[in-house]
């Protein structure tokens, strides 16, 4: 398209009082030869009418709007899919945070304009990606327990087809093997209701069910998945739009709990074994089939124990309360002891705890020291924390171990793969243990034909990764949503909500993909990375670093992008040493030119310049927030928003420093175990890459203090001015960049 660009400056919201608008117009004219208009209230009806008028009568299709932050009024300034709109922040980051009518404030505003004008010069209008094949919108649900059944049914209710794959011969999962269930309003036990759910699913014409089935291979990407299923020995292939993984949990292996008497005494059973016995009719002593009078439940059996299962499964407390109730129902005289660390009955489930107390169950807080046998009965010794004494409970007929939940995806043994050449801890055979966050650490469930591993990457306990702070359903594989207890341990009421949520995300993904737009977090983005393959050196950085496994490889080792898997983070663009990956509206040369557009004063002017590459997701709005709160910071910093710090290409550091910029700040999200990065690995990768930047600095004979990486959360806005000012002090102490004026 031929670009016709006009720059518009809004003088409202205090901008007109803070800066000299006529001078700004001169800059636009002199440096970019672009027409420039101003308006006192650009987002008001007249302002918008002016924009529309220019679009219609003069054919303007590229708008540089120098006004408020791009994070606000984006709906107001949405001028349709045919227009390029670039926002220049003159309000939050200039008028509201800098002294008015000041030389430095003016220079900042001018540079912000230059940066934007340089950007639109290189920007092209994105076109939605369109695959050659037709997009599928059916949802594959893996797992036919409560979560999977619910997800399939909700998908059907929303008008989409579901394909359900269950490994067992019958549907219903664990819940079908339960006697009763505790759920809202948590006053009494209720029936599981699973038969009704199963028949609703099997009777629904929009749901295709495969039992005794497994997923053998998943190829393609969202909208284009081709899923090979083996069902009852037959092979079938389904075309699928998005996937819900709901393959549930397994109980923690009680064979590891010998210290609690499991395996040693027949009358020590797990809560799962107890449930099966209760569902089977009568609860009796496994050793001799005699009646059960005294039962002791050991809570957190292996749970919340660094040696076993370090986390709380959040349901086993409730399960024991339920099972104690079975015993009281079977024999009102039965005595139940519940030995706990903490009773965790979250939310309204507390009501059921009260009921169990009222029923006369005996709660003891402490830890088990010994489970033993004397005279055909069991005894338990424990340290009672509330009495502060060692206690002994005798004449016990049955000990129930409340074991926790392990995600079904967690492998029994850590799998090993062939180690890359330079891996330090490989064994004699050249093999290496895979990390939980690789796609290789899992019991097969999806068998993805992805270069980056066949399963969803997991967090350290084996649960598929999810952005637990903000976006719990998201996994690291686009269009695949984990739900139910495979995602995190949860009770049945929570599972229902969770499954609906995952099904809706899957549907949303199908629709977005069919429209060629990105899903979360750049929802609606139409751009996608394009590879200039002529110059590719097959270094494989892009395939390895893409956090979403979007890039496969062909037989010759060339990267093979799957645009429908792409989240448009730009991490590949930041990774590529050849700089051949670009988006229509975001590329390495474009940002390079933006940096180059910054006017760098001569050394004797004593006005340092710092470029801050700032993550658009959290850090940039936090900076806006500091502006909204009228906080002040140095006027010498030029902020350039980036999609993710992971998209930062190191060449920009060289670009900036070789042009006399005195320092570089990188603002990104927290990384590590409780990461906040919207692209999961982006800020971590940026940090690692920055470790290598010292080479560049050495080559230029510059101090490493000139480049700094800072992690900020969305709520850290109050820290930002201080971070900036401290960095400016550092820059002052290392002195001006010797490359100024080159």
């Amino acid at each position, binding site marked *: 398209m031929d670009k016709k660009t006009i720059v518009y400056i809004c003088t409202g919201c205090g901008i007109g009082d803070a800066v000299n608008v006529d001078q700004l117009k001169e800059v636009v004219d002199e440096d970019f030869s672009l027409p420039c208009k101003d308006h006192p209230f650009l987002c008001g009806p007249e302002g918008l009418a002016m924009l529309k008028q220019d679009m219609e009568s003069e054919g303007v299709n590229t708008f540089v709007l120098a006004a408020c932050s791009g994070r606000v009024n984006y709906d107001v300034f949405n001028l349709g899919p045919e227009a390029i709109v670039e926002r220049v922040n003159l309000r939050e980051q200039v008028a509201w945070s800098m002294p008015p009518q000041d030389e430095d404030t003016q220079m900042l505003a001018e540079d912000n304009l230059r940066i934007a004008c340089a950007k639109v010069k290189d920007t092209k209008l994105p076109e939605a990606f369109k695959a050659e094949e037709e997009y599928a919108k059916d949802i594959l649900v893996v797992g036919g327990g409560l979560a999977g059944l619910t997800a399939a049914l909700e998908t059907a209710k929303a008008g989409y087809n579901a394909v359900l794959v269950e490994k067992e011969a019958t549907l219903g999962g664990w819940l079908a093997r339960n006697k009763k269930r505790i759920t809202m309003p948590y006053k009494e036990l209720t029936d599981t209701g699973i038969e009704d759910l199963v028949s609703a699913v099997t009777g629904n014409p929009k749901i295709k069910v495969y039992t005794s089935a497994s997923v053998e291979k998943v190829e393609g990407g969202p909208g284009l998945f081709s899923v090979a299923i083996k069902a009852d020995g037959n092979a079938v292939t389904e075309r699928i739009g998005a996937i819900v993984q709901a393959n549930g949990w397994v109980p923690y292996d009680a064979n590891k709990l010998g210290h609690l008497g499991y395996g040693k005494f027949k009358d020590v059973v797990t809560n799962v074994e107890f449930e099966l016995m209760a569902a089977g009719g009568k609860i009796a002593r496994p050793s001799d089939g005699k009646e059960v009078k005294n039962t002791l439940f050991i809570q957190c059996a292996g749970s919340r124990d660094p040696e076993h299962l370090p986390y709380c499964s959040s349901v086993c407390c409730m399960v024991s309360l339920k099972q104690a109730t079975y015993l009281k129902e079977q024999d009102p005289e039965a005595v139940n002891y519940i030995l706990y660390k903490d009773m965790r009955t979250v939310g309204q489930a507390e009501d059921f705890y009260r009921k169990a107390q009222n029923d006369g169950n005996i709660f003891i807080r402490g830890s088990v020291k010994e489970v033993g046998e004397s005279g055909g009965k069991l005894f338990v010794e424990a340290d009672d*924390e509330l009495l502060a004494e060692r206690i*002994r409970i005798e004449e016990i007929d049955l000990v129930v171990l409340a074991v926790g939940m392990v995600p079904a995806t967690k492998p029994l043994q850590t799998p090993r793969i062939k180690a890359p050449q330079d891996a330090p801890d490989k064994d004699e055979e050249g093999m290496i243990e895979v990390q939980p966050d690789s796609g290789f650490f899992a019991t097969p469930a999806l068998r993805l034909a992805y270069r980056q591993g066949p399963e969803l990457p997991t967090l350290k306990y084996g649960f598929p990764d999810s952005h637990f702070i903000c976006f719990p359903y998201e996994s690291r594989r686009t269009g695949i949503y984990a739900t139910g207890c495979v995602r995190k341990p949860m009770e049945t009421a929570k599972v229902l909500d969770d499954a609906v949520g995952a099904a809706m995300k899957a549907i949303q993904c199908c629709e977005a993909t069919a429209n060629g737009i990105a899903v979360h977090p750049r929802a609606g983005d139409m751009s996608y990375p394009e590879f200039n393959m002529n110059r590719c050196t097959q270094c494989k950085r892009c395939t390895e670093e893409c956090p979403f496994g979007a890039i496969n490889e062909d037989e010759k080792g060339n990267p093979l992008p799957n645009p429908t898997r792409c989240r448009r983070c730009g991490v590949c663009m930041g990774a590529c040493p050849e700089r051949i990956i670009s988006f229509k509206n975001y590329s390495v040369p474009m940002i390079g030119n933006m940096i180059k557009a910054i006017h760098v004063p001569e050394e004797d002017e004593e006005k340092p310049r710092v470029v801050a590459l700032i993550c658009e997701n959290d850090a940039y709005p936090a900076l806006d927030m500091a502006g909204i709160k009228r906080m002040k910071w140095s006027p010498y910093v030029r902020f350039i928003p980036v999609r993710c710090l992971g998209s930062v290409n190191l060449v920009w550091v060289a670009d900036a420093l070789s042009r006399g910029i005195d320092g570089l700040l990188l603002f990104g999200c927290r990384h590590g175990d409780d990461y906040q990065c919207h692209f999961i690995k982006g800020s971590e990768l940026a940090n690692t890459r920055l470790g290598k930047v010292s080479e560049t600095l050495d080559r230029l004979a510059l101090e490493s203090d000139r480049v700094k990486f800072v992690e900020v959360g969305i709520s850290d806005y109050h820290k930002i001015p201080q971070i900036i000012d401290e960095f400016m002090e550092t820059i002052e102490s290392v002195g001006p960049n010797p490359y100024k004026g080159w």
Partner: protein
Amino acid sequence: MGKIENKGGGRPVGYNTSFAEEVFRNVDFGEEIKMCMQCGVCAASCPLSLKMDFSPRKIFTLIRAGKREEVLGSQAIMLCTSCYSCKVRCPRKIPVVDVMHGLANYALRQGFVPRKNTSVFGGEFWRQIYKLGRIDEKDLSRRYFFADGLVPGIKNSLEMMDMGLQMLLHKRMKLLPERPIKGIKALRRMLDKAEQMGKGGARA
């Protein structure tokens, strides 16, 4: 985890529910303690918990574990001053005050005298209310101070002399003996009834 003491000389204590059942049957509101979740809000609220050998929470735990002697012999159950802080705050709505008084009453009936002076005071208080329908401060304090004999009585009286003089000055205590209230007969019938119901207060 709290520190575990080794009271029984290395032998763990047996855990039995018989005392809890005894409390449920015989103590007013005794059964309510089933609902205690050991949060400790009562202990934190109680202005006297520092003076108590066991906080209300701990008393409930001891009952559940079957520690009859410790509970019925505890100072704590006699120390409750009916401030009602615990009862108001208990998230499980246990009438902690009533349970404490019920326990004290039951302990005395079972021949435990955890705090002799408290029960002497209680006894005197009841006796005067029964006789006069009100309290004769000087008579009550005289009997309370001299309960342990002449020498401690004089010592107690001297210690409290300033307060006594202030009370006289502010007409909180009369020199002449108090007279019974109007309707004393009706009051006595009520107290007799309470006595019959086993609610005669914490007195020996």
